[in-house]
């Protein structure tokens, strides 16, 4: 372990205790007690090393070897932000600059009967009991150091609540901007999405970085689906060559709820996405789709969990990647079927195209099944572009580079088409087509 590693950890611990000492009676609140427990967990766990099975192929040494300015100020204006993002008049747009939710810059178009969107802090002030019911509940037993760290510093971010029987017509698009033009910046957004019985909502999280300095994002989103709820959740990462991203999305589903996740990593130096879904009800349906396109020496790691705890639920997973140059990809998909979870259907598939001999893809499906009446399957493929398909296209007059990009685009199409927020899907279609055409 290098001295810098100790430094970042020590710095964070010191920061925490300094903040705590400024608190008055608040330090005794249940909210803060959760943070205190989290910092202890972080202190105990420390940053993971490749000896940790969960981090075997993803070394964070480089990520923690530098210092960052946490919660840095930024002079980005709404006009700047709008220029960097695609417009969507029909969506609730939430801006986060360096992890800090800005109510001022954001625009909420849905009525407060349909959806309540507030900063985590304000939401807690207004209704501590409600926020406390959800905050940290899904991750408190997580043995991930980054998640604990996020909890300990949970300050920024939003609380989104969809009351029972509300269908939120306009999607919620959360735009996270890291402004790394002047210095290394770090942010730890923490979001809670609580969807009541029979509540319906579509949500996207989009991450971008501006500037050449390093950015570190350690994001955690907790999503609660009550009975019959329906949530579509998309995460799009289009960051810079100096962007490090660790993100955890933790989901709990109750009876008859439906959850769809799409995780698309377009760019970033180092990306680790954890998507953990607990199917804690009967007749639930969870779908997970993922896409990643690392090139240069980029690193993309997707860890997913489908934890079936009750009978009669389905999970389905499809992740796809195209790897170039010296990039590295990791896929680890866990499926747990607990003893009670009879009649579970759980399917998982990870398909990759590796275009360079120096690129590597590590795939690891992990099935742990304790029930006897289940249908589970998993499969991974890693290969090159289909030569026969390439020749077929060439024989119709399509040049080899054009045929390659068409085939690669086609490879991605079944994942892209799953994204049901039009502006997000159209944005992805454009960026992906460009990305596949330029090389």
């Amino acid at each position, binding site marked *: 372990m290098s001295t810098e590693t100790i430094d970042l950890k020590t710095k964070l611990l010191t920061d925490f205790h300094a903040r705590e000492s400024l608190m008055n009676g608040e330090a005794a609140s249940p909210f803060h007690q959760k943070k205190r427990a989290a910092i202890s967990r972080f202190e105990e766990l420390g940053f993971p090393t490749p000896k940790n099975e969960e981090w075997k192929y993803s070394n964070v040494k480089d990520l923690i070897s530098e210092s960052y300015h946490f919660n840095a100020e930024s002079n980005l204006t709404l006009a700047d932000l709008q220029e960097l993002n695609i417009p969507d008049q029909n969506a609730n747009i939430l801006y986060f600059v360096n992890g800090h939710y800005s109510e001022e810059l954001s625009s909420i178009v849905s009525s407060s009967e349909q959806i309540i969107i507030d900063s985590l802090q304000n939401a807690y002030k207004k209704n501590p009991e409600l926020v406390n019911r959800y905050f940290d509940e899904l991750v408190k037993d997580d043995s991930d150091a980054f998640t604990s760290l996020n909890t300990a510093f949970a300050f920024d971010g939003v609380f989104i609540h969809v009351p029972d029987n509300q269908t939120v017509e306009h999607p919620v698009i959360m735009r996270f901007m890291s402004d790394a033009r002047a210095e290394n910046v770090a942010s730890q957004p923490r979001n809670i999405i609580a969807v009541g019985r029979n509540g319906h909502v579509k949500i996207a999280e989009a991450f971008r970085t501006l500037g050449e300095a390093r950015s570190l994002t350690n994001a955690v989103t907790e999503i609660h689906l009550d009975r019959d709820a329906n949530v579509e959740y998309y995460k799009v990462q289009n960051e810079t060559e100096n962007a490090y991203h660790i993100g955890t999305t933790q989901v709990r589903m109750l009876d008859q709820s439906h959850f769809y996740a799409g995780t698309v990593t377009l760019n970033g130096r180092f990306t680790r996405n954890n998507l953990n879904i607990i199917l804690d009800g009967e007749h639930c349906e969870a779908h997970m789709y993922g896409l990643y396109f690392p090139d240069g020496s980029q690193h993309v790691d997707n860890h997913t969990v489908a934890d079936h705890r009750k009978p009669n639920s389905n999970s389905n997973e499809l992740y796809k990647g195209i790897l170039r140059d010296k990039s590295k990809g990791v896929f680890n998909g866990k499926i747990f079927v607990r003893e009670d979870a009879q009649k579970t259907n759980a399917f998982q598939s990870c398909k990759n195209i590796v275009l360079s001999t120096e690129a590597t893809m590590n795939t690891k499906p992990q099935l742990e099944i304790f029930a006897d009446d289940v249908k589970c399957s998993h499969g991974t493929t890693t290969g090159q572009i289909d030569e026969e398909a390439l020749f077929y296209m060439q024989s119709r*007059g399509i040049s080899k580079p*054009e045929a390659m990009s068409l085939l690669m685009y086609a490879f991605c199409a079944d994942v892209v088409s799953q994204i049901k927020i039009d502006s997000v899907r159209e944005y992805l279609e454009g960026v992906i087509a460009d990305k596949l055409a330029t090389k």
Partner: protein
Amino acid sequence: MLSINELRASIEGKEILKGINLEVKPGEVHAIMGPNGSGKSTLASVLAGREEYEVTGGSVTFDGKDLLELAAEERAAEGIFLAFQYPVEIPGVTTINFLKTAVNEIRKYKGENPLDAAQFLKMVREKAKLVSMNDSLLKRALNEGFSGGEKKRNEIFQMAVLEPKLAVLDETDSGLDIDALRIVAEGVNSLRSPDRSAIVVTHYQRLLDYIVPDFVHVLYKGRIVKSGPKELALELEEKGYDWIKAEVDALG
């Protein structure tokens, strides 16, 4: 139009074509027949530019150009079309998008402006009617889940859209029932014209009942061992290939 001279080709070090000579003039239809393993499909693949085959000798000129110097897509743009024996399924690319890309890539090669969406759709609808291709198939992923007959019809439809000077049909009849065969053949015949030629590679004579050739050639052990008028196909149907094999093998 097409002139093949002493063409030799091998795959993975094994020589398949051992000196092919063939002259195709505008408007002519040539049938290439022969027993399994004689090199029929290899000849079709080499003409279309499949890279797995190594040309080890001879020459092929097409409209005065050295065909063997051209990449597969350039051959297509020059007017050669290969109808595949086993058309490839390409999930995620619709037939219509695939063809639009192909048409516009060929136009680009010729220095022409791309067709706009309206012009393209109008042209495609006309061609689809010509080969009785169902519109709904056009919007589906290319050949994905198509029946054998639908795939072959899609080949002929693509040929109609691309309007090649020389069509090479590689065992287009294989796997087709008689009705599908007739529809495919009608499509091919409707494209016949004094300046368009075709090479029809087939194992059986029955396709030639519908696409009547000007010449029939028998390929055996990598060479054209017999050529004749369309009646030769009927003779082969009746007597099989053994008498030709015996003739050739006797010459040693």
